[in-house]
């Protein structure tokens, strides 16, 4: 029997890996991937708490579904942004996209 803590630890690890990706990767698309990982970690937590807490009411899954929707939207817009940035500046390296520099 798997206790809930396993799921939580797993989710935390996944989250931190994703965070590392977000903070450290050069390529913007890779950063998006990191964000996806983080979102999934959150989802795991939600569902785990649903399953281990009160499976009678479905809120956990509902939230997870919402997260799916948000993730999809975020990826669509993000990728579109990167594509247009790439068109203008021929790069998608996050630290070269610094027009807002002083």
């Amino acid at each position, binding site marked *: 029997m798997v206790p809930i803590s396993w799921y939580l630890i797993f989710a935390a690890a996944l989250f931190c890996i994703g965070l590392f990706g977000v*903070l450290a990767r050069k390529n913007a698309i890779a950063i998006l991937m990191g964000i996806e990982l983080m979102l999934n970690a959150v989802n795991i937590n939600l569902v785990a708490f649903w399953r281990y807490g009160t499976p009678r009411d479905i809120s956990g899954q509902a939230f997870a579904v919402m997260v799916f929707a948000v993730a999809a939207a975020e990826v*669509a817009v993000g990728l579109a942004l990167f594509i247009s940035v790439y068109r203008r500046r021929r790069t998608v390296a996050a630290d070269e996209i610094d027009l807002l520099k002083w």
Partner: protein
Amino acid sequence: MTIDQILFILVAAATLGAALLVVTSRNLIHAALWLIVSLFGISIFYVFLNAGFLAVVQVVVYIGAIAILMIFAIMLTRRVADTPGPRFNSNWIWAVLISVVLFGTISWIISSWPGINGTKPGLVEAFDPVQKLGVALVSPEAYVIPFELASVLLLAALIGAIIVAWERE
């Protein structure tokens, strides 16, 4: 060490390994493929958690749509996708530090949480999460408003993406 614990550990190891490769592999396409793998692992976790619907949706949305989109984007920006050179930016040390510290903190907090060894309450028979979820998503006293909002958000994202990525001559 029951059989599902073994399964859990196997899948978790695979998923985390894939995730690590996602954030570290030099070739972005590989990163994307690894992302697919780890997302697949996560959907298996949903299966473990008796959330079959979520598992399948995970595959549909993430693997069927998001990952494909990412690969597309990578290929469209191909020139820089497989350029040699540092895959990390200058302050990756900080990133590692923060991630590790965060992980430590979270695990510490979890370990100090009373309900840590909680186990699954048994699912009663004739309980269909899919049906319940469906009802919950469209019933006014539950989640119909967030549901609609999500759909509007998706529509907006759709249009926004088209507008942003539009190539104007």
